[in-house]
């Protein structure tokens, strides 16, 4: 029922090359992306006007704080790390036609396990062992948390939307149970895990406060993009996603590829949790749940599952959310406003795409 998410023409990226058609295609997708962005900014601006804030001042402040101030920019880039890894996770899933809506749970559980594992490990082992092992453990934890939905989808055709959502709710609570009952730091009053000392965390980039996990995340998105668009394995996943019957016709094992999709997607979500803990927080407090999942899903759609576009959108979103957090302190517009903006973007994107689709259909009929 959810087949056909493969963007038309997006698959053309399998063959790079020149030619006017390529430029026209790029121009078209830029137009298809910019129109909704502008529309969303305008309509969201009207909402600001309604609550008595000058939208131009607000937008300018957000961009200034999130992008043009050095401190803000560093925060923005640090924020990108988990979002990019989650984006990579969703690129894999969505291109393969799997609605992994459980990334928040996968992220959170992995984060808690890493938070529990890293401090004791760091006492005994060198950093270059601890960090990779922790990231791998996180990836494995994420993947494990997706196993049940994966098997149910692959072999029983149980709708993964429902199972991944369930696992996310379950995972959120389970993460809390772990923090409060098993991994609790006995020395704090607030329930939280033991804290990884700053010097044992993922090193910062040069002289900045930027968490160098963002490099890992960037690499992950680029690798995922290349794998999905240029490799045989990626094409197999995309074929399953775009037309499972054609996949069978071409001799692909749909159940096995489905499980692989879940495993990779959830492993990346788990890695995102590790990067967030090892790079930024150092521990997990009880009831901590940044809820990146719902925000990143629309971004990946907006980017039409394209890795480069995901990087661009995640950057823009991070600017908005860091700038928005500043603005909420300064201009009194709560950062929830960003959610409205993202929602409007998504709706306008869908609309523009619908109109474009109809227009092209009309053209091909005539």
């Amino acid at each position, binding site marked *: *029922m*959810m087949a056909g*998410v493969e963007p038309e023409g997006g698959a053309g990226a399998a063959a790079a090359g020149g030619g006017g058609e390529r430029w026209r295609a790029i121009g078209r997708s830029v137009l298809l992306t910019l129109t909704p962005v502008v529309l969303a900014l305008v309509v969201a601006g009207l*909402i600001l006007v309604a*609550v*008595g804030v000058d939208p131009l001042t607000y937008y300018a402040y957000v961009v200034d704080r999130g992008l043009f101030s050095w401190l803000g920019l560093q925060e923005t880039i640090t924020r990108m790390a988990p979002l990019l890894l989650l984006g990579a996770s969703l690129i894999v899933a969505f291109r393969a036609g799997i*609605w992994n809506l459980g990334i928040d749970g996968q992220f959170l559980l992995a984060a808690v396990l890493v938070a529990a594992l890293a401090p004791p490990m760091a006492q005994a082992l060198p950093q270059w062992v601890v960090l990779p092992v922790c990231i791998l453990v996180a990836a494995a934890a994420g993947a494990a948390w997706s196993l*049940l939905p994966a098997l*149910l989808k692959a072999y*029983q*055709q*149980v*709708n993964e*939307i*429902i*199972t991944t*959502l*369930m*696992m996310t*709710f*379950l995972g959120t*609570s*389970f993460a*809390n*149970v772990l923090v*409060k*009952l098993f991994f609790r730091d006995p020395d704090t009053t607030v329930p939280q895990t033991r804290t990884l000392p700053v010097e044992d965390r993922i090193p910062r980039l040069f002289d900045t406060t930027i968490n160098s996990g963002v490099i890992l995340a960037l690499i992950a998105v680029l690798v995922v993009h290349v794998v999905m668009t240029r490799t045989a394995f990626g094409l197999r996943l995309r074929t399953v996603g775009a037309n499972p019957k054609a996949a069978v016709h071409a001799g692909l094992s749909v159940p096995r590829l489905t499980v692989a999709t879940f495993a990779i997607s959830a492993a990346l979500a788990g890695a995102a949790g590790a990067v967030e803990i090892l790079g930024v927080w150092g521990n997990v407090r009880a009831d901590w749940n940044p809820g990146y999942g*719902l*925000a990143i*899903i*629309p971004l990946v*759609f907006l980017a039409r599952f394209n890795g480069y576009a995901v990087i661009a959108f995640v950057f823009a979103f991070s600017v908005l959310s860091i700038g928005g957090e500043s603005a909420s302190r300064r201009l*009194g*517009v*709560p950062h*929830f*406003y*960003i*959610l*409205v*903006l*993202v*929602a*409007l973007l*998504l*709706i306008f994107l*869908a*609309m523009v795409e*619908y109109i474009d689709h109809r227009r092209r259909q009309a053209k091909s009929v005539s």
Partner: protein
Amino acid sequence: MGALLTEAFVASLVVGAVTAGLPLLLAGLGEQISEKAGVLNIGIEGMMLIGAYTGFVAAYYSDSLWLGFAGGAGGGAAVALLMAVFCVWLGMNQIVIGIALTLGAEGLTALLHHFQFSRTYPRLPDTATLPIPGLAQIPVVGPAVFDRHPIVYLSVAAVFAVVWIYRKTHIGLNLQAAGDKPAALDSAGVDVAMTRTAAVLVTGAMAGIGGAYLANVGAGLFVPFMTNGAGFIGIVLAMLSRGRPTWVLYGAALFGISLSLTTALQVGGVNVPTDVIQMLPFAMVMVVLVLFGRRSSLPAALGLPYVRGAR
């Protein structure tokens, strides 16, 4: 264990279960109607949240709880109208739009709340209840179940009304045909898109009332993100109920009990972390899916836009 079953524990459990379960009941029942007609309404979380906000605003400014529920219904239905336009009429992706509407509702209500109420956090006065003579006098359970706001009784009555509608009216037949074999409905001369639109609007209104209950009766005030996944639980209830309204009632009761178990246990003197209890319903759902996954029945045309002539 004997000490656990004190009067205070049971009373607290049942009171909490009704308060927590009612929004789930309305959401689940509404979602079931949409799904019956073939629309997977992922935006129900957003509908509840908007309903909670508009319901609270209406109740706060009118001093009438009933107008509050009407406001909630209107707010939920307004979001549902967007859903209907995008998904039923234009045939856009139901999941993407559903998530977008949820996000938008979260952001918008939080924003509006911030500007209106964040300084004062106004509360509504305690809800007047309507004790049902006789039943309300039953010890322990009586006051918990039969001394509530009338909307509670109406919601439970709605379950049976929906049973009746499914079985005995043309509306019920049309809904089922729209979800199971839209082509058959179309050939019988009934507009499939209109049928689905009506279903989605009713879903929105019910979810909105559920949200309003959460805000106006459950909490007495509006808090951003207060639905906290209730809409998604509603979706699960609907999917597992296999089209039977009474199953949604049982499911909502079960979820309600799990959600209120923590408080009740604390009242009963046992300290179990909330989170362990909160896992129960979801774990239960997964167990059910593992055991009966293959047989879970959803309308054949669920999630698919209807285009005449296309098979």
